């Protein structure tokens, strides 16, 4: 049993809507390392077995590495037998299932209703109705609305612990009435995450009529939101619903040596872990957090962790065709398009992209639109994350206003960008980070696996995260100052191991790249001028910084915050292209 002997290998399966990935981790030189990776299309469609896509991904892994985990010609039953026998632990993360329709019962719009909404937006749930105190005046109307919605999940939130808010009882009774009206198979499961004084009452009233989940109060004191326990209660239930709809997926997850989680839940766990590790780091003088972004084919996930707190937002890329039909949004995409593409062409590209988000852009125009859309997705998700979590240091238009390091990014638009500079520029424009940070690309989409396996083998993520399984895209130094454009705001003295030192002056409004040869590290002596803030403790403060080699070396972003783009489309596209060339094209 996994618990009785040390873990020596781990197979991570990641089943998405488009692709299924298999990653094998083993021990090499007393450290866990990524030893093989395979990818195959996800097998979807009624009657199809998701394990067949997983089996193919494992076979691709085997063909690439020579590692034998399953026999090449095995069917699903034998594949799963082999997994049981040859692999210590199988981890399954997935985002393949439909978002569960979710309605929230709460009290005030700014209080429990808001917290319930934030919880729904942190998991693969589809918010379909928020009902607050005012709605209790028309209970019949609420019931009719819910019968129309037919929610899969009802979240009841509200009341500080011990407040014995009587309205909660009415919501519980309304949930009970709804369940009595609906046929048993169509009744929603109910998550109660309000005043803990009512746990017994909730059990007594609701358990006879529906599945009841109890979680600690989402907001036991006003302003103190804790979603983690509720997320931990909900995530397995979301998976169970998915298993019911895709029985083969459930078979994978019920292997005796397997664990499973949805991708956002697993990501949330690792981001929380990393932020806790930073929070307790004695060398960290500044308040600092961790950020992860995943630009998937169908949704954007953005996660931030700071001081042991973590927030997640899962945003579907579009609802219907909203991206192509929202003129303001299309204009925003145009603003970030590094080619002079007219609005109708952007609208056409995005409309067709919704049909097949996996298409590869052939032309420069198509690539520019796709990458502009990636920037806008990140900006939108960041705004939403800040709206949901008030501890996140963020200002609209200015991006993040505190230190986040590392920033870990995934999604094919980033990891399969034609050049690393394009990936870097998308992330800088989309997130507008501050101070000094490291941008890491999660090319193999391993971060969710780290969140999953961390629970049973905490050392595995530690080893893998510091290995080359993740790509260090580069170190970014953001210099923010009020000096006029073109005036020097920072001098960087670059101390090379080879002794070939040099100095560079960074003018306001520019983006510069300092190449760091592969395998060496450099020391930067940073001298900000005119109260320029580079995150060394305050405006005008500089210091020494040791930088490891990354794909792009060091990027100094002195373009200012917020980023300002020329209003003229041609000039704007030229500016974006110039920035890109500064990062190597």
């Amino acid at each position, binding site marked *: 049993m996994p618990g009785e002997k040390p873990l020596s290998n781990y197979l991570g399966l990641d089943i998405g809507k488009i692709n299924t990935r298999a990653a094998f981790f083993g021990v090499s030189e007393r450290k866990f390392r990524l030893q093989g990776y395979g*990818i*195959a*299309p996800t*097998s*979807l*469609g*009624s*009657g*199809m077995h998701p394990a*067949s*896509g997983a*089996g*193919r991904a494992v*076979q*691709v892994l085997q*063909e690439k590495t020579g590692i034998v985990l399953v026999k090449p010609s095995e*069917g*699903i039953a034998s*594949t799963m037998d082999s997994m049981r026998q040859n692999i210590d632990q199988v981890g399954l993360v997935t985002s393949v*299932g*439909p978002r569960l329709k979710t309605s929230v019962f709460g009290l005030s719009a700014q209080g429990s209703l808001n917290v319930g909404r934030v919880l729904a937006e942190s998991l693969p749930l589809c918010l379909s109705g928020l009902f607050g105190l005012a709605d209790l005046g028309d*209970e*019949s109307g609420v*019931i*009719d609305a819910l*019968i129309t919605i*037919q929610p899969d999940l009802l979240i009841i939130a509200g009341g500080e612990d011990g407040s014995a808010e009587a309205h909660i*009882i009415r919501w519980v*009774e309304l949930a*009970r*009435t709804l369940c*009595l*009206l*609906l*046929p048993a*198979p*169509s009744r929603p499961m109910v998550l109660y995450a309000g005043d803990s004084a009512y746990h017994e009452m909730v059990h007594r*009233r609701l358990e006879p009529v529906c599945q009841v989940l109890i979680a600690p109060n989402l907001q036991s004191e006003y302003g103190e939101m804790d979603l983690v326990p509720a997320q931990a209660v909900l995530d397995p239930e979301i998976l169970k619903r998915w298993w019911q*709809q*895709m029985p*083969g997926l459930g078979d994978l997850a019920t292997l005796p040596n397997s664990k499973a989680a949805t991708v956002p839940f697993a990501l949330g766990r690792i981001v929380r872990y990393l932020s806790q590790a930073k929070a307790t780091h004695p060398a960290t003088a500044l308040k600092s957090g961790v950020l992860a972004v995943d630009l998937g084919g169908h949704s954007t996930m953005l996660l931030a962790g700071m001081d042991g707190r973590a927030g997640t937002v899962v945003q579907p890329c579009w609802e219907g*065709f909203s991206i*192509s039909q929202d003129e303001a949004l299309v204009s925003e995409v145009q603003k970030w398009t590094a080619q002079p593409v007219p609005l109708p062409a952007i*609208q*056409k590209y995005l*409309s*067709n992209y919704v*049909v*097949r988000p996996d*298409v*590869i*852009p*052939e*032309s*420069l125009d*198509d*690539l520019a639109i796709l990458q502009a859309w990636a920037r806008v997705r990140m900006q939108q998700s960041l705004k939403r994350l800040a709206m949901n979590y008030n501890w996140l240091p963020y200002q609209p238009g200015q991006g993040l206003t505190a230190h986040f390091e590392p920033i870990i990014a995934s999604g094919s638009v980033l990891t*399969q960008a*034609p*050049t690393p500079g394009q990936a870097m520029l998308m992330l800088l424009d989309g997130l507008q980070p501050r101070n000094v940070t490291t941008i890491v690309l999660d090319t193999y989409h391993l971060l969710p696996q780290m969140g999953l396996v961390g629970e049973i083998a905490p050392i595995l993520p530690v080893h893998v995260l510091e290995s080359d399984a993740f790509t260090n895209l580069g170190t970014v130094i953001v210099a923010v100052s009020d000096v006029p454009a073109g005036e020097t705001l920072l001098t960087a003295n670059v101390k090379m191991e080879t002794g070939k030192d040099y100095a560079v002056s960074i003018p306001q409004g520019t983006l510069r790249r300092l190449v760091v040869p592969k395998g060496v590290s450099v020391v930067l002596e940073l001298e900000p001028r005119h109260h320029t803030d580079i995150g060394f403790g305050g405006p005008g403060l500089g210091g020494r910084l040791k930088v490891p080699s990354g794909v792009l070396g060091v990027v100094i972003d002195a373009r200012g915050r917020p980023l300002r783009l020329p209003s003229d489309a041609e000039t704007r596209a030229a500016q974006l292209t110039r920035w890109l060339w500064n990062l190597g094209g």
Partner: protein
Amino acid sequence: MDEKMMVDVLRRARDVEISRECKLSLPGEVLVKIGDVLNPEDVVAQAVIPSGLRSLNLARGLGVDPSEVTSFLVQDADACLEQGDILAQVEGAITRLVRMPFDGRLIACQDGKAQIATDNLVIQKQAGLMGKVEDIIPDYGVVISVRGDLVQGIWGNGRVNCGVLHASRDYSERLQDGTGLDEIEKGQVVVLPSCLNLELLERLEQKEVAGLILGSLSPGLIRHAQDASMPVLVLQGYGDLPADPDTFELLSLSNGKLCCLNAGSTDELTGQRPEVIIPNEVAQDEPAQDVRAQDVSAPDEPAQEVSAQEPTRIGFREKLRVGQKVQIHSGLYLGRTGTLVDLPSTPKTFESGISCLTAQVQLGDQETVTVPRQNLFMIA
């Protein structure tokens, strides 16, 4: 094995056996039986949900504490009651009782109040398709089978309807410039190579056509098409795209026949796509190919096993093979169909800078183009 050779499939075929699930979203009663012949408007299943909830304060009526009310109820939960029926009663020197002030069904009683449903919400599922009931899905619906032509598209506005197909090509050209509108009759399903202006869409809606099948749709009209009262099906893509001659030929051959247009959304889990089904008018004797959205695995390949050979199908994706018809979904050739003539083994770098495996597609005009394999739909 090259996994990138698996692409999404659009079914466009003549004279095939088609099976479709038709079911309620919640359990109810199935109203038909195996073997029944259905018309599109036939209701195959229905569910009845009590609604119109009203609250009766029994505690006040009985003059008792709310916590005691349940012990004075004389009706069971779920009982259907008529106006005047006694709901609760307190015996004593002076008997107190509460009668039903209206017809309804007792749902629950809590805190001294009775919840009464005064109405029913009837949710019905129509067949939406001509065909025969092949199987019953207990409590939910049926599987309907029909033989005919099948044309799947890339997008639908979520609506379903049936009507007589109006698919003459020269007519389409006249309709496009507005001169052919008079020929349109209410209840027809109109086939057009494209719809690029709002006026045309609005005039067709005013004509109360039963549905619209488009080669392409202007991106600016998506919202209008979404809100249209009739089903709208897009076959090729968004923009001003040249019509696919083969598909329009297939539809033209069925001009004047009854067709069933299901412009529902694509569902990766079930393999369902928006589609038009044109049932055969006369039953054919020869065996037909079996096409099921619910079970798209090849008949000779068990869906539950990875076979020893390379599998040819993954759900609603299939493996590309030279000689097959494909539809391009990117770049200059967006929406164009052609025949796959080669799958080069070395990647190509496109203008975007992205390097990937490609497919060579011979278009109808004999021009051969190179596109990323991933950007194809297979036409099967």
